[in-house]
């Protein structure tokens, strides 16, 4: 039997880097094949080449035994290849239906889109795989899991037989991952071939039939999923064992650093997205918030750092009411913030590193005073961050987008922690960065805790929450529905609370 996909000797160079170096990949028909590797191992580049978004410098590609040469995704789509991107390729201000049919619109005379036919075809596809979605909503109103579903339906709508899923589980809770895997198995049963990128080893081992491991742009192994252990896979991926966040001794004190009282936040429509939240975080304590995205975590963070209006309730900082104070006042008082989306809120991508390091601290020594930036001071401090937090960069004058995701995040963590903060609000601090950088970030947060930092940690990575937190609270529909001790909770339990399943079964906290 010919393979569905056969890539031979693929090489792709970018200025200064070789993203893919003589990569080989063979995917049999009807299998789920995982491509794993650290961030920067060249997985995404390889997938882009396979999907026709980039042309390889060297190497050949065969699809179903035929030699192909893609110059655009259209060519790939014509060959039955569909891709679900890691960063969703959805337009917020278009409807679900418009997003799905884009590029494959059924039309009648005059180029008019036949929306009826599109909807009919769509609901047929959706029913077949048990994926439901309201097609006339704007995408901007959807949550992450729903957006992913739209992306998958989009690919199925085109009748793709070879699906590329680029880190599909990154933003899902265990139950959603389970649902996704169920869908993947159904797809496989109906004859589809799935190429699946992931770096979570347990998931890879659970779902895939075979896997290919990339490291530094090279293929290091291809194997069947029979008897391979997570340990072996980890060693192949990183060359050393995977770090895990271990809970260490408690450093929690009695001194309340951040207190929220009856905090309520409304969204633009006047709906309560954060509802009567009460929370105390002590010096030396990490409180983790678990929850499916879109349950008010973002608004809670905004309320604490001062970018959202607080409808009622108070935020206080060492007993001082800061509910009405500006973001800058709060930051000057010692509030540090690691934002969820480092590209949008964390960095100025086209500015040099030392300017980025000064962001949010521009009014404070050593970066500057009220009016003036202190260039020398800022540069010296940036060098210090670079050294202490192992930010790998040629120098501090390169712009932030030249850094890998992990190094960008280390810069942000360094910027926030070197300002001697009292309270840290960290939203998804290790999202989308490789295991090495992840371990470094965990160590940094733990070290800061030992020095008395009070931390509010929001994360979708449940192992991270369990490993780092002293207390875990679960947020559902804007409320805290459970308070759990990390020592006796598993990711599965947490997932049950997060989706509300545990509460329906009477297992309330």
């Amino acid at each position, binding site marked *: 039997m010919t393979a569905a996909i056969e890539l031979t000797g693929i090489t792709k160079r970018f200025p200064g880097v070789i993203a893919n170096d003589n990569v080989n990949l063979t995917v049999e028909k009807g299998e789920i094949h995982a491509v794993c590797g650290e961030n920067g191992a060249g997985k995404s580049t390889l997938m882009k080449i396979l999907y026709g978004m980039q042309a390889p410098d060297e190497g050949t590609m065969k699809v179903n035994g035929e030699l192909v040469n893609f110059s655009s995704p259209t060519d790939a789509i014509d060959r039955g290849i569909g891709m679900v991107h890691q960063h969703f*390729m959805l337009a917020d201000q278009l409807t679900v239906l418009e997003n799905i049919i*884009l*590029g494959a619109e059924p039309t009648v005379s005059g180029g008019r889109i036949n929306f009826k036919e599109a909807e009919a075809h769509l609901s047929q596809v959706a029913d077949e795989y048990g994926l439901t979605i309201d097609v006339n909503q704007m995408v901007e109103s959807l949550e992450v899991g729903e957006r992913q579903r739209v992306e998958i339906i989009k690919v199925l709508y085109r009748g793709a037989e070879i699906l590329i899923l680029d880190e599909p589980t990154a933003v899902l809770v265990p139950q959603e991952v389970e649902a996704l895997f169920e869908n993947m198995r159904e797809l496989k049963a109906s004859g589809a071939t799935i190429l699946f990128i992931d770096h979570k080893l347990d998931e890879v081992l659970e779902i895939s039939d075979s896997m290919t491991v990339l490291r530094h742009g090279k293929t290091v192994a291809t194997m069947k999923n029979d008897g391979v252990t997570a340990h072996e896979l980890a060693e192949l991926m990183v060359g050393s064992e995977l770090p895990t966040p271990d809970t260490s001794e408690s450093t929690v004190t009695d001194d309340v650093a951040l207190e929220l009282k009856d905090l309520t936040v409304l969204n633009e429509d006047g709906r309560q997205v954060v509802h009567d939240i009460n929370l105390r975080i002590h010096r030396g304590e990490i409180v983790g918030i678990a929850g499916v995205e879109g349950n008010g975590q973002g608004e809670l963070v905004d309320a604490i750092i001062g970018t959202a209006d607080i409808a009622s309730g108070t935020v206080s900082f060492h007993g001082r009411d800061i509910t009405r104070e500006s973001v800058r006042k709060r930051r000057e008082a010692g509030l540090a913030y690691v934002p969820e989306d480092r590209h949008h809120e964390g960095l100025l991508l086209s500015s040099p590193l030392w300017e980025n390091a000064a962001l949010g601290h521009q009014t404070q020594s050593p970066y500057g005073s009220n009016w003036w930036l202190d260039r020398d001071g800022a540069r010296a401090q940036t060098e210090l961050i670079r050294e202490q937090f192992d930010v790998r960069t040629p120098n501090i004058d390169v712009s932030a987008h030249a850094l890998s995701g992990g190094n960008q995040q280390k810069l942000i963590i360094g910027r926030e922690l070197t300002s001697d903060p009292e309270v840290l609000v960290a939203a998804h601090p290790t999202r989308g960065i490789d295991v090495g950088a992840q371990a470094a970030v965990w160590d940094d947060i733990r070290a800061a805790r030992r020095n008395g930092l009070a931390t509010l940690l929001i994360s979708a990575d449940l192992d991270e929450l369990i490993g780092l937190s002293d207390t875990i609270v679960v947020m559902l529909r804007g409320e805290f529905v459970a308070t759990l001790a990390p020592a006796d909770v598993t990711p599965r339990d947490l997932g049950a609370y997060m989706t509300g399943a545990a509460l329906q079964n009477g297992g309330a906290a």
Partner: protein
Amino acid sequence: MIAKLNDLPAWARWALYAAFGVLLLTIVQSISDTERLTQVATAREMLRFAVPIFLAGLGGLFSERAGVVNIGLEGMLILGMWFGAWGSITYGAWWGLAIGIFGGMLGGLLHAIATVTFQVDHIISGVAINILAPAITRYLSEEIWASPTTSPRTSAVGDWDVPFLAGGTVFGWESPDLLLTISQWEIWYLSDLAQLSRGLLRGTSWVAIIAIALVPFTVWLIWRTRFGLRLRICGEKPAAGEAQGINIIRYKYIAVIISGGLAGLGGAFISTELSGLFQGGNSAGRGFIGLAALIFGNWRPGGVLLGALLFGYVFGLDLRDLDGTASHAMLLVNAIAFAGVGLWAFTRRRKADTIIAAILGVGALFWWIVADTVPSWWSNTLPYVVVLLVLVFFAQRLRMPVSLGMPYRKGET
């Protein structure tokens, strides 16, 4: 009641808004010493001013929906003016319009080459076109008409009176002029409404009719067709379109060229219909005001038309308002509008907006009380002031294309 209003079909809702607007004008007029606010000629001038503004704004809509900022509309309008005049003189009126469109398209093509292919900043390219266009047309005028500033007389495509409502002829038979009859009854409000309507329906330029027809056509094209969906993805998330095999660059080119063509039609209208000749400077910044109408109209065709008519009304009124009394009455309209906005902001508990609206409203009222006339610079400034205020009060409700003005390179996500 508001819920019921939203249940009405769009045309009925708009008609209701228009009727309400005229009611406001009539009330203000009853307590002012002017009659110009609701005269036939005011409506006619409004339409004549509004057509090129609308066409430029609609051109901006095509370009910006595809993600390209088009501040070069003014230059494309000027190219349309010259080519329209030249075409009209050389081949006749309808050819004049076609050649005017072509001239604008050349400007659009230039803008597309600069911004889409060479990634030039959209504002810089647009400003360059605005500088280039008057210079080129001046040179061409000198070469062809031996005069750098003016052309010979052009011919126009003519106009049309709507039968029955405004006394148009049907197969040679002169139909009754219903609106004229109603105006002559001199009933408060009803006759004012009839006069304004008659100004729009009698002696209406074919270009104006085409322009109005472009509203539903554009809605259909942009929101109902494959072409429109693909054009919109260029302005919303081009990478998503590219991932589905859409040639983003091609759509951007088409959109910007259409944009230039529409501005060119607006320019041809100015030279062949409004002034009857090409004259440098006659564009009078209408391309920029078109851009203002685009923002005012929230990047939607109906909104752009509304903005163009609003601005056209202010200009048209000013043109016929030699003693400044009508513009003075407009101050009271402004004050009432601010009161409305302030009330709206108050019910939404937007404190800052309420205060700003109250201050501006009281300011306009105060000005109205102390002055008898208003200088004409006020009318020329008003469109920009209106757009600034729209941005102040309604910025959160404006939905500009997400990727507007962002550089796009193939294969980069």
